[in-house]
């Protein structure tokens, strides 16, 4: 019984004399490789991205390194609720919460904040579940590439690497749809 209609009948014909000598087929093959070689030398290799001078084009919503954002007044949005850690399928996020003192009102939005916030970049699978789970619009994924490190412990990114600097905000509005922009509280 035929399972698909893409089957081909196998032909068991004897090789003709021209095929047996191998030479005509060899020359035809050499012609094909020669054409490829000439084409590559004259017009450049067709599908080669000479990294790092030329980078392969990435999508607009490509998920890269994380960023913990601040609001318009410069206060950190993250309140250490732990929803991102629970949502993460690879268990890459860990955090320790702390209480805000009277002098720190300009640093944090609410009374609870994350004193230690670590993402293990080797565990992270860049799925974006943390970005979807966050109720405070604090964590986003940008299109930056994660840098090269020399040992495993350097890949555990702490708050210095994740929270955006006050003077150098990272703009993610191009990645957001209109509905997402309106939902930022």
């Amino acid at each position: 019984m035929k399972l698909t209609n893409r089957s081909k009948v196998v032909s068991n014909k004897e090789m003709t004399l021209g095929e047996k000598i191998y030479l005509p087929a060899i020359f035809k093959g050499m012609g094909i490789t020669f054409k490829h070689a000439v084409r590559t030398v004259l017009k450049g290799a067709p599908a080669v991205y000479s990294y790092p001078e030329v980078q392969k084009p990435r999508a607009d919503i490509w998920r890269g390194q994380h960023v913990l954002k601040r609001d318009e007044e410069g206060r950190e949005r993250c309140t250490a609720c732990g929803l991102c850690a629970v949502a993460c399928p690879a268990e890459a996020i860990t955090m320790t919460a702390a209480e805000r003192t009277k002098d720190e009102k300009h640093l944090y939005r609410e009374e609870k904040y994350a004193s230690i916030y670590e993402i293990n970049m080797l565990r992270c699978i860049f799925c974006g579940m943390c970005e979807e789970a966050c109720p405070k619009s604090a964590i986003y994924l940008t299109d930056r590439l994660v840098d090269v490190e020399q040992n495993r412990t350097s890949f555990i990114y702490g708050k210095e690497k994740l929270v955006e600097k006050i003077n150098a905000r990272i703009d993610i509005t191009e990645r957001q749809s209109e509905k997402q922009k309106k939902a930022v509280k």
Partner: protein
Amino acid sequence: MELLTFKIILVLALFLLALTIAAYSTWAERKVASIMQDRIGPNRAGPFGLLQPLADGGKFFFKEDFTPQNAEKFLFILGPSLVMFISLITGAVIPWGKTLNFGGISYDLQVANIDVGVLFIIGMASIGVYGIMIGGWASNNKYSLLGAIRASSQMISYELAMGLSLLSIIMMSGSLDLKLITEAQSAGKIWGFIPAISGINWNILYQPLAFLIFFIAAMAETNRHPFDLPECESELVTGYSTEYSSMKLGLYMFGEYVNMFISNAFMVVLFFGGYNYPGIDWVTHNWGENVAGVLSILAFLTKTIIGILIFMWIRWTLPRFRYDQLMHLGWKTLIPLALVNLIATGAVILAFGN
């Protein structure tokens, strides 16, 4: 300058030339492979990746060099050394160019002008089989041994075809001396009646079938694609050189490239007129002996390098032969063809008497 001094300089120059061309053959191999596969080869180590062989050599030096536990120490070291030694020493009888003139004395550019040159090279190729067998046996590894046995049987069967196709050339030239074979290709009318400029009466015009057989046999002798079953990675885990690391592996791989260079040089001497280029007599007459000598060296090297490029071209075009197909080709196809060629050459010589 004394003859001995000149010969010593020639030996050193030849050694450096063979090693440099082998080193840059590795570079050319990767570049030729890449442009045939629609990509760019090594281009980071120096302009166009030209310092890549240096980087590879440095890598081989820095790797750990160990001997497996129950391997025969002496034989382990002897194997790759033998391969390299044989590859280099066959370059001693090849005439690399016409004469050079220093202080009024013409010096031949051939280290050893023995009158059994062809026999010397074929003999050395046979000893080359020993290098691989010793390497495979001394590794104390049954897969290496299998690889070595397959390699040696392949090399022995193709040596026969090589020798038989050479016999027709020797019959035509009348001697085994490589210098005489080269000289015979510089003068005379093509096919007996077409008058031509000097230096173009190449043997390939008389013996195309012998050239084809010799070409295929030379590819099999140097374990080159599509006959590289002994050393391919996917079939036998690199065969006889599995247990080698660092410089000994470097010697094996390098020895293969030097062997390829020398085989191509030999093929150029026999079939493509050696160092002859069209107009060699005119240049000797008008521009002096030294200019003709230097041009002849350049012509020889150009032809050899074109031969090496064709070897690489074929490598990246054809799939590998299966082992029984390989033996079938060697024994049942090439040897009868070579014998037929021999008989035909004999008949033609008898009929035309030249």
